[in-house]
């Protein structure tokens, strides 16, 4: 109770500071819109039905954009996981894979995924394929590296103990090495998610795709139209989605791991 009260007070203070800066007219309202106009934008692009004479053409727009973005994000992220997790395990297990795929992953992880955008555009054109490619490139390498370090950090005593109990190859992998490296893998998945988000936003801001306007594209048009309320509104939505996925997707896992492993504070 006390914790949520502290949080509410903090964010209320932040909002008040924003309002105060706008009221003091430090910057032009074109550059720094007050909270109210951002709220109006959010209302117009979501539930506002407009009046009987003039229906709001932008109603539900934001939901469509979120839908388009999430679809791209999830598809790219899942591909990144499905390819990255096994590759990470192979990298940890075999020296030859470590010297090849491992080095490649290390190198490409250092490459900001927005650098893939020009190439993706030339290869795939202004299509969903280009989006997917950039997101996968943003996710894959960090998932491989996190999985590899997770597996290599497994205490060898677990494997020895399992072997004396009759566990072999695949059983050892599935029942011992994978659960033992789970804390690392979950944090790698979390990192992969963050990278996927960043890549997709960069790609959406750069590339206009006719098959669907994502959040990044809405943000981009906000800039083109000098509509800072739109830019800030979209940014808030992106932040909110980030927080929500953390709470819904990753927190339950992390809490479970902390309880089992006894690593919670």
């Amino acid at each position, binding site marked *: 109770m006390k914790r949520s009260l502290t949080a509410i007070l903090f964010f209320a203070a932040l909002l008040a500071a924003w309002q105060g800066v706008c009221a003091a007219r430090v910057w032009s309202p074109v550059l720094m819109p007050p909270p109210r106009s951002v709220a109006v934008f959010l209302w117009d692009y979501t539930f506002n039905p407009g009046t009987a004479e003039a229906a709001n053409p932008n109603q539900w727009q934001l939901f469509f954009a979120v839908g388009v973005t999430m679809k791209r994000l999830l598809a790219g992220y899942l591909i990144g996981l499905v390819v990255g997790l096994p590759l990470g395990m192979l990298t940890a297990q075999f020296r030859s894979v470590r010297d090849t795929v491992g080095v490649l992953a290390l190198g490409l992880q250092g490459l900001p995924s927005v650098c893939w955008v020009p190439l993706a555009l030339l290869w795939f054109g202004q299509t969903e394929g280009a989006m997917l490619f950039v997101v996968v490139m943003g996710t894959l390498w960090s998932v491989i590296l996190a999985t590899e370090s997770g597996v290599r950090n497994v205490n060898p*005593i677990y494997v020895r103990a399992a072997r004396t109990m009759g566990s072999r190859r695949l*059983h050892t992998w599935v029942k011992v090495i994978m659960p033992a490296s789970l804390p690392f893998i979950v944090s790698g998945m979390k990192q992969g998610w963050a990278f996927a988000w960043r890549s997709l936003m960069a790609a959406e801001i750069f590339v206009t795709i006719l098959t669907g306007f994502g959040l990044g594209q809405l943000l981009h048009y906000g800039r083109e139209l000098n509509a800072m309320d739109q830019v800030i509104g979209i940014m808030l939505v992106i932040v909110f989605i980030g927080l929500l996925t953390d709470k819904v997707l990753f927190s339950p896992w992390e809490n479970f791991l902390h309880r*089992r*492993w*006894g690593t919670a504070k």
Partner: protein
Amino acid sequence: MTLQQELAASPSAKLAVSRVSKTFHTRGGRVQALDHVSLNVNEGEFVCLVGPSGCGKSTMLNIIAGLETPDEGSVHADGLPIRGPGRDRMVMFQEPALFPWLDVFANVMFGLKLKPGLSDPERREVAQYYLKLVGLESFHHANIHELSGGMKQRVALARAMAPNPRVLLMDEPFAALDALTREQLYGDLQRIWQERRKTIIFVTHNVREAACLGDRVVLFSPHPGRIREEFRIPLPRPRDINSVDLAEHATEIMRALKGHLSAVEVQE
């Protein structure tokens, strides 16, 4: 198999280690952990391997466990050569090596699930029996990190016993525990050994502990690892680690150990 090996692996010995050598190559150079070591252990016998660190006693245990392979020599269990780890020889390590992603009950079930020929209710019954035997029947669903060091080793003991191995290999399992907990576990281990009649090989550097637990204490000396002497401990059970009779045996072993150590130093 040569005739000597066959004779060494005579059916009377549960475990037959004959002329086993093992050398490790480390950054500091070669370390000969075992130099042509032979040892026979009978069915139901409690043998303690004692010696200073680096004398190869743990290596010996790992070789019998099948976790390491000897450079020379052979190891037979029930007359069959050992090729890798097996359910007939369970190991208890110095660290409990329990799996933190499973609760207490699931840890004990881990080895049982790998044992064929049991139904799931039977496996659960076995796990319950052994958790009760080590006095942890009310901790089935506890997480591993919630247990004390002594409780963890009790779970590890239950986990090692559950698949009903004929040989239990214990590598300094109580070394990291406080004295009081250790004394309780000496009592528990003797009671369980008498009830279940396992063959136990117990590695320790604690001479008193060895005299308390073993029917026979085998003394190792380092550089290279060799067996120096064997001592029979004919005391009745259960034995109290603080008893005077036991102290006499321990002193005798300790004196022998010091003698061999100074002999090694003179040689070098």
